[in-house]
């Protein structure tokens, strides 16, 4: 995951780089969508339509034109915000995506809070105790989180904590009988239920989000822990740490008031990147928990072969990723006095 980071070379080249990367993304989604064996016409009209219908749809999709022309139309559509209609839901794809996004963002935000809340202290703890047993324990703990197939852990957690102990809510965002009780204003159930003053719904939602978010958070904490540890080790080896000790600061004060402060910027940037890769875990965990979010929308479209919707989803993930990379770069520039 650490290598999934685009480098922007200097502020001047940044806009150009983003433009080129975006264009590349569009090319990629276009070619995967158009050139691969799956037949977009068949996906729309089904296997047993007549030859005439086939021809008609074929032309209406512009598939008889040369490729570069098709790509041009694709670009035009994308920039005018026209991503086509989902064959499965009959709604414009972009509208579908906007509708499911809040559920995923809610889950991912909860997860990153847990992931960072777990990963950062563990990373510091491991660095301070380098090569002693706490370091090894933390290492195995975080590698474990990195190694678990999250869809499986999700199922086991459901069996244990929901079916067996009844400690948490099961699938979905809230208990069945609450669905439809709260008006959708923001799409974020935790916020909507508070606005509506429905505390029962709120607690039900918390009960349901806690398990998938913890699992996602644990799996992302592996990366955060590892990076925090190596950032901290860099800092603890620096001479200014000795200076702080000479001044009379205690070990803990030195760690938190000097070394840790110096890795804040780096931490924010890797947490932003980890947030992006949570989308990846969300695809699997949403399927397991029947979470009506972006991941489930994507997999449903995959299964029905709705390539238009799939490629739009992929494009959006790519854009989010570029955005997060850019954000982390900008944060670096703002918060590190040396780059000002």
């Amino acid at each position: 995951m650490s290598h999934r980071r685009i480098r922007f070379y200097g502020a001047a080249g940044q806009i150009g780089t983003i433009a080129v990367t975006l264009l590349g993304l569009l090319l990629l989604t276009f070619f995967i969508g158009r050139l691969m064996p799956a037949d977009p016409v068949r996906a729309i009209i089904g296997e047993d339509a007549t030859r005439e219908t086939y021809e008609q749809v074929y032309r209406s999709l512009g598939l008889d034109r040369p490729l570069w022309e098709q790509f041009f139309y694709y670009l035009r559509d994308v920039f005018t915000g026209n991503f086509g209609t989902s064959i499965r839901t009959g709604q414009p794809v972009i509208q579908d995506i906007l509708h499911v996004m809040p559920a995923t963002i809610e889950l991912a935000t909860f997860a990153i809070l847990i992931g960072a809340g777990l990963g950062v202290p563990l990373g510091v703890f491991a660095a301070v105790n380098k090569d002693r047993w706490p370091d090894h324990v933390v290492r195995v703990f975080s590698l474990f989180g990195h190694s678990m197939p999250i869809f499986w852990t999700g199922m086991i957690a459901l069996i244990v904590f929901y079916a067996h102990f009844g400690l948490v809510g099961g699938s979905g965002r809230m208990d069945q009988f609450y669905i439809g009780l709260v008006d959708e204003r923001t799409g974020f159930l935790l916020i909507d239920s508070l606005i509506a003053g429905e505390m029962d719904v709120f607690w039900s939602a918390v009960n349901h989000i806690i398990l998938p978010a913890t699992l996602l958070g644990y799996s992302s904490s592996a990366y955060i822990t590892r990076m925090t540890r190596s950032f901290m080790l860099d800092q603890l080896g620096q001479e200014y740490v000795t200076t702080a000790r000479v001044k009379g600061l205690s070990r803990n004060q030195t760690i938190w008031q000097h070394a840790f402060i110096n890795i804040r910027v780096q931490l924010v940037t890797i947490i932003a990147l980890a947030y992006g890769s949570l989308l990846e875990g969300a695809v699997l965990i949403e399927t397991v928990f029947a979470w009506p979010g972006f991941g489930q929308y994507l997999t449903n479209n995959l299964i029905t072969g709705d390539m238009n919707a799939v490629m739009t989803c992929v494009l959006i993930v790519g854009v989010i990723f570029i955005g997060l990379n850019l954000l982390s770069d900008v944060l670096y520039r703002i918060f590190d006095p040396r780059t000002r």
Partner: protein
Amino acid sequence: MSTSTETTFRLPAPILALKNIVLFLLKSPTSAFGLAVLTLLVLVAAFAPLIATHEPYAQDLALTLQAPGNGHLFGTDELGRDIFSRLVWGARITLTIIFLVSIVVGPIGLIIGTTAGYLGGKVDTVMMRITDIFLSFPSLILSLAFVAALGPSLNNAIVAIALTSWPPIARLARAEAMTFRKADYISAARLQGASPARIIFKSIMPMCLPSVLIRLTLNMATVILTAAGLGFLGLGAQPPLPEWGAMIATGRRYMLDSWWLVTFPGISILTVSLAFNLLGDGLRDALDPKQMNRR
């Protein structure tokens, strides 16, 4: 060099190096665990017909969803197939995936990375921009897109994973190539009139190989998880293949009453991917000279 009797008993250098690395890995309990698990995995895959107690595809509709015990070590699935035997045969699939992905990804990454790194300039810029575009997706989502377009099957899953996991390798190979580019022996080769292609293949690639191999090992855990994820979503290996992720997907329907259907394949995936991660972690230490000296 001076006495010939000494050299006759020497192992060839690469094997000697490998022996040293293995010895180093065995010193740390975690990487020793990783090494042991992976050795076991290879043995199980190799001797699958001998180890498996039943035919992996043999259905027995009279004995469906049997709990572990009674001649079925890990119980039976919804079609009465022996789960233990299916897991054993599944080890072959897992190894095949890892092997195929690695032999595709390694050379692609190596060629792109070394060419870009050695030639530099415009070639480098263009190639790295392409790499960056692939890097700007989370790998699972890009694999999903490829599989969706190619159609769900084990082979397509392997192709998709390979297509999405070469960029980090290429980046690494490029970084390495750039450090060797300025070395004196490369200049010497150039002065002798060697073509760029020859220099890249004969002088640069062998130098980049060790770090690329480590990176591939580190990658294997991710490959296993992605493959299992694709299998779970029904986009990878298709039933009745005993692929671990696909086994979990079918077992999911029965998980509340028959926990063993999902538990054992999951533990298998977890163990193998953990083993690769632990081994990769150990390898990183083993090949980092700073770490070597301190122990």
